[in-house]
């Protein structure tokens, strides 16, 4: 079990989600749990709660999981996925209000050092206009 917070990347596009995850792996390394998902169940652009839940499971850490999203449905579906988690996991997963690529790299770098979920989320959100 990782001592680091996990990162989940949710995009409407599987290519963007995978590319973002590639950047995180390349820049930050393999010491953080990382998963990504993108596309609707038919393989088109969109997001799916089932895929988001599977990604959260894949990147699960007892320290928590930070989700980075792109637009609209990625955020609302991620929030719905969090609500559907078992009660003992629900409070340990947070959706970050941050740009997906930059936020994922920043969040992962902060997570790498063993930071808490709140610190990871705050670091990703430092990028957003307040």
């Amino acid at each position, binding site marked *: 079990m990782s001592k680091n917070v996990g990162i989940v990347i949710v995009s409407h596009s599987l290519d963007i989600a995978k590319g973002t995850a590639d950047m995180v792996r390349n820049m930050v390394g393999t*010491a953080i749990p990382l998963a990504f998902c993108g596309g609707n169940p038919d393989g088109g652009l969109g997001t799916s709660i089932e895929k988001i839940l599977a990604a959260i499971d894949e990147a699960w850490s007892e320290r928590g999981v930070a989700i980075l999203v792109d637009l609209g449905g990625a955020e609302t579906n991620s929030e719905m996925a969090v609500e559907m988690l078992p009660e003992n996991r629900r409070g340990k997963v947070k959706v970050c209000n941050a740009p997906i690529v930059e936020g994922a790299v*920043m969040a992962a770098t902060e997570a790498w050092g063993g930071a808490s979920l709140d610190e990871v989320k705050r*670091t990703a959100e430092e990028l957003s206009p307040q």
Partner: protein
Amino acid sequence: MKDWVTKSVVVTHAIGLHARPSVKFTKLAKGFSSAVEVARSLAGPWFDAKSIVKVMAIKAGKGSTLHLRAKGADAGSAIATLSGFVASEFDEDRTDAARY
């Protein structure tokens, strides 16, 4: 209270302190217990070298000078490691071996 250990180093890497080395720089800084700060000017402002957001925002290009300072038990080692990392044009093998 001890004084800051300070060192200035010129960025010689062709692209400067770009994204990937910014992440590595931050990860190296996090490995020390000392406070570690970085600035473009000795007059400041000084930024927390353990903050990836701050380090990424520095955008030090080729030929620019980075000023480093650290205060704490391992300050000397922190400054030696970080200035060496910049001077070696972000030598990836050496820093990876030391820190991962």
